[in-house]
């Protein structure tokens, strides 16, 4: 007999940590972005996606609103705005 043991990551759903945001969320202005990818690199959640200039976005299902992406953006193209709704999908 076997009980809870190992987990297949592909079957793992994770927690919708976007619901943790209560104060601020990152707003991607899509104006001065140079696609340096630093926001994508630095996100602790790995929830920033994108390839082309002015086309990076955070998955608000998981974004915790930590603000590090806004802090690292060399063009200040990400601003932290007041949280309106939680867990909205892109």
């Amino acid at each position: 007999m076997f009980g809870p043991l190992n987990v297949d990551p592909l079957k793992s759903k994770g927690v919708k940590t976007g619901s943790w945001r209560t104060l601020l969320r990152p707003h991607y202005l899509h104006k001065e972005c140079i696609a340096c990818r630093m926001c994508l690199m630095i996100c602790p959640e790995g929830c920033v996606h994108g390839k082309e200039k002015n086309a990076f976005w955070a998955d608000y299902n998981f974004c915790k609103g930590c603000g590090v992406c806004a802090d690292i953006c060399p063009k200040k193209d990400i601003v932290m705005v007041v949280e309106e709704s939680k867990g909205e999908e892109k």
Partner: protein
Amino acid sequence: MENNPLFRSGHTACAGCGQAIAARLVIEAAGANTIVANNTGCLEVFTTKYPDSAWGVPWIHSLFENSAAVASGIEAALTYLGKKDSINVIAQGGDGSTGDIGLQALSGMLERGHDILYICYDNEAYMNTGVQRSGLTPFDTNTTTSPSGASSSGNLRPKKPVPEICNAHGIPYVATASAGFPQDLTRKVKKAISIKGPKYIQVHVPCPLGWRHESNQMLSVAKLAVDTGLYPLFEYENGVLANRRQITPKPVEEYLKAQGRFKHLLNNPEEIKKIQAIADNNIKKYNLRLEA
């Protein structure tokens, strides 16, 4: 990196966790052909709570202090199976599980010459159990088991020089890195993976909760640690200091001011002088000063 996330969203790290950033960068630099052995700690707890797992690579957690030994077993098994050359093995843990309780297992792994990369996520205390002091807690830090008070200015012992200890084992590569310098960390991981033998990288990772700073200050705090000389970034290759990040040193007070864990020092110039001395020592030892 995005189609097959090796470190998936949906983990329960604190917002702005330096260790989450570093762990993600490490595994993405190492790639999908990697097996990870992890010590008990924040990283293990927030990435793998049954039935969820954030790891897109094969991953194992056994106990608090033995990832280096477990990884040694994985590496031996892969060698037996003839697969070692195509699969990377990473052992990782926090500063406490690496430099204190796990130092023996780490030393054994280094001495035996296994082809394993060891990553130490250094947030300078036992964070997962409540910010208790570890051997790598810096001098004068306020932690729950080295609190500042009438008779103490915090942790009264210097930081254990684990990278130096690893280097003394005669391994091919030792480096320090920081979550505040993500591209540097990625470069160092990729470089380490390409070397055969035991490697050690110690990553300075701010902990907003334990260090008491805002989550969006993670980068600036990490950078200040490096720019004051308190956390030198360097690489040892085959025992020789091959590289270091040169700085125009900032006064340590800027770094101390940015975190609640040093608040008790701000009106204590005597102690700040001692910490400045530590930074100056590092600057001299590793030749960190950027010549104009």
